[in-house]
């Protein structure tokens, strides 16, 4: 049995005006466990707190009930008081007799009556309280960034600048991501390479950053501050440490008909390749599916010309295990496949291209050296039609498109249209739109410039059908403002394809037990207030893996994620919230229901041996809650049919006792 002390606060006249505090403290004296009950003008004042401390000593109290203002106001205060008096801070319960009683009820009788009942509930609860001690866990002072695009690069640089070591895992042979493929960037039109490549070099030169390129995360164990991660470094058949990136091997490689993924297959590369001139690390990679030497042992030319002797045909995948305190997901996005949009004839005509392909076509380092040509015949296009929202905001055809707005298309389409008119004033450029969405600094001005200064023809309405005919593309579309159908003979059609999270995100989310929405975007811990954190503690979100976003937004989010990581790594120890779920192994069925509802992936299962009454042993699967990860919502406690799962601080028995006290 607890020895409970009850302290009723007047809060000046705030409480005492509507509640007979004397009657309350008298009434609560008779409650089970109560050995001391008093009232005072301001419990939260120094004098009030001293009164509590003295009473704890004098009456050997083990539990405290304060009838006062909302626990949201002074729970922390009175917990500190309890700790100072030498009892566990979680042995304090607050009865809210101000905000939820004296302030909302007018007459003394009802106010007093209710205050007594609320006090009784708090006493009933505190009788069942147990001392709780927040768990402590150490923090590994190293961060992992998954994905080496602009999001991952910026996050890694910011963390490294704060003095913490960071590893970047990038599945491609080079970091840089989508931004490296872009030509110019809106709304300022600086060239993507000019602003990105210096950052890539910074990453390569930063002592705190390691790059695992051509690598993937294969396993994640552990929890916030203590992740154990396995990284698979895929064999690139070139010794990274000695390759100088001179490119002699690439020149000599006889296998030159491999579709170049960096240029989206619009030209070819060699079997041994460096994705682009400014690649980081600037190291060659052999494509095992194309290399003759690796396929059938015939060739070996690259090894012969390599002055550094870096070629190693026998290289194997390597698995690296490393410990991290925090993980940042920056897996980025891809344009969706256009194959299913038959109405736009993407599969039928080479001259129907996606916007990313258009980027490569206009990029000086691209397949056409920056000259805008029709991919089919290399001719200069005169009439160009841009179609926005291809696959975006597409609710009815889930297997084709995405129901969300891809956010970046309006701006890059305006950019493409503007740049085309700027460089080739002889072209006629149409943009078909449903809405033009330009919420960003200098964004709308940018789009208006495309219309007003560059004479881009924006037509409200969608293209319904594109039919290749001769060397033209017959575009049939609607002009909703003029209320008529348009027929345009286009030379080139550019589709603003919706963007989707990278395919690697889903398996990664499973590994991280980080939650995702139905579109495979990572969910935030709070959509407004914690936008760069995953609900899974220690996992942070950077860039388009969380939702479509442009470069400025990605960079800000990357910085924000880095700040959160730095905040975490700066701590030596993590103090947990002690009010977490706990499973009683003896009653747990191991049915996984609780893990299904846990938003944080805090619950895992293990096979445990139990001694049975008949001295046999039995191995059963049981749940275990990781207190460092659990946030204490209690969803699992209700999902658990056997009642094995309970929440410390808000236990079934405690809440039930409150219910009983109120209903008596």
């Amino acid at each position, binding site marked *: 049995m607890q020895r409970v002390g009850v302290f009723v606060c007047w809060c000046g006249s705030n409480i005492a005006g509507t509640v007979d505090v004397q009657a309350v403290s008298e009434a609560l004296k008779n409650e089970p466990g109560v050995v001391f009950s008093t009232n005072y003008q301001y419990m939260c004042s120094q004098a009030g707190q001293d009164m509590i401390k003295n009473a704890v000593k004098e009456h050997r109290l083990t539990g405290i009930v304060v009838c006062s203002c909302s626990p949201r106001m002074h729970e922390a205060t009175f917990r500190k008081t309890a700790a100072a008096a030498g009892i566990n801070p979680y042995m304090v319960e607050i009865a809210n007799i101000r905000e939820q009683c004296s302030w909302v009820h007018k007459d003394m009788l009802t106010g007093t009556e209710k205050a007594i009942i609320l006090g009784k509930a708090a006493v009933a609860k505190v009788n069942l309280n147990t001392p709780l001690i927040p768990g402590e866990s150490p923090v590994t002072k190293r961060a992992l960034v998954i994905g080496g695009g602009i999001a991952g690069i910026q996050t890694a640089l910011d963390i490294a600048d704060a003095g913490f070591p960071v590893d970047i895992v990038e599945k491609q042979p080079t970091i840089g991501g989508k931004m490296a493929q872009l030509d110019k960037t809106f709304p300022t039109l600086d060239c993507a390479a000019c602003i990105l490549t210096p950052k890539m070099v910074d990453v390569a030169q930063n002592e705190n950053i390691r790059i695992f390129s051509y690598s993937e995360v294969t396993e994640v164990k552990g929890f916030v501050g203590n992740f154990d991660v396995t990284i698979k470094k895929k064999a690139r058949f070139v010794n990274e440490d000695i390759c100088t990136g001179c490119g002699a091997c690439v020149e000599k490689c006889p296998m030159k008909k491999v579709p170049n993924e960096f240029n989206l297959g619009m030209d070819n590369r060699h079997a041994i390749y460096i994705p682009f001139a400014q690649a980081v690390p600037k190291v060659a990679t052999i494509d095992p599916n194309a290399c003759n030497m690796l396929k059938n042992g015939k060739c070996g030319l690259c090894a012969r010309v390599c002055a550094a002797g870096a070629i190693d045909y026998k290289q194997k995948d390597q698995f690296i295990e490393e410990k991290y305190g925090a993980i940042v997901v920056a897996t980025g996005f891809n344009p969706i496949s256009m194959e299913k949009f038959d109405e736009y004839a993407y599969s039928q005509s080479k001259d129907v291209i996606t916007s990313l392909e258009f980027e490569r076509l206009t990029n000086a380092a691209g397949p056409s050296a920056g000259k805008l040509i029709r991919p089919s015949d290399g001719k200069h296009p005169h009439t160009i039609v841009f179609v926005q929202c291809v696959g975006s905001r597409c609710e009815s055809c889930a297997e084709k498109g995405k129901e969300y707005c891809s956010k970046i298309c309006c701006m890059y389409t305006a950019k493409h249209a503007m740049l085309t008119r700027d460089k080739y004033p002889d072209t006629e450029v149409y943009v078909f739109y449903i809405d033009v969405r330009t919420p960003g600094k200098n964004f709308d001005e940018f789009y*208006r410039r495309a*219309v*007003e200064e560059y*004479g881009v023809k*924006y037509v*409200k309405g969608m293209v319904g059908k594109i039919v290749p005919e001769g060397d033209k593309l017959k575009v049939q579309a609607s002009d909703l*403002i*003029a209320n008529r159908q*348009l027929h345009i003979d286009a030379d080139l059609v550019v589709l603003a394809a919706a963007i989707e999270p990278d395919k690697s995100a889903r398996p990664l989310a499973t590994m991280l037990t980080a939650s995702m929405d139905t579109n495979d975007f990572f969910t935030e811990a709070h959509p407004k207030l914690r936008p760069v954190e995953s609900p899974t503690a220690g996992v942070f979100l950077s860039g388009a893996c969380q939702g479509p976003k442009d470069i400025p937004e990605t960079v800000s989010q990357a910085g924000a994620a880095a700040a959160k990581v730095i905040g975490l790594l700066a701590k030596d120890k993590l103090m947990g919230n002690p009010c977490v779920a706990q499973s009683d192994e003896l009653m747990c069925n191991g049915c996984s229901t609780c893990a299904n509802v846990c938003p944080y992936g805090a619950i895992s299962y293990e096979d445990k041996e139990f001694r049975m009454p008949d001295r046999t042993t039995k191995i059963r699967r049981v749940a275990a809650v990781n207190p460092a990860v659990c946030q204490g919502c209690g969803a699992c406690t209700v999902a658990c049919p056997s009642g094995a799962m309970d929440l410390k601080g808000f236990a079934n028995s405690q809440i039930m006792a409150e219910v009983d006290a109120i209903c008596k």
Partner: protein
Amino acid sequence: MENNQYLREEIIRMSGVNPTKCMKCGKCSGTCPAYDEMEYHPHQFVSMVDNGEIEPLLNSTSIYKCLSCFACIERCPRGVEPAKVVEAVRLIAIRRQGANRMTANDIPAMVDEDTPQQLLVSAFRKYTK
């Protein structure tokens, strides 16, 4: 589709309006008191002129239905001034031979006691050259 660049440039010159500034919000038509009377509405004037589709406008009575109240100019968030476009189209029509909407002979039929004289004068100015 008609694309009369000559007339387009002429109207732009006469009105001093840059139709590409229009962002097709429709506020001009939303505020127009003569909307129900018109076949082509203020926003369509701007957009059709921009597309060089002038002939349908010239042949429509919409150009005479505009009251020149300038509400559209007042309200346009982009400063496009649709009424000036309408006025310019009207002038193109009036300047064509015999295309005056009114002649002096039409006046007596319109006069009644309540009609202010000023209205007749301004209408005469507006519909003839």
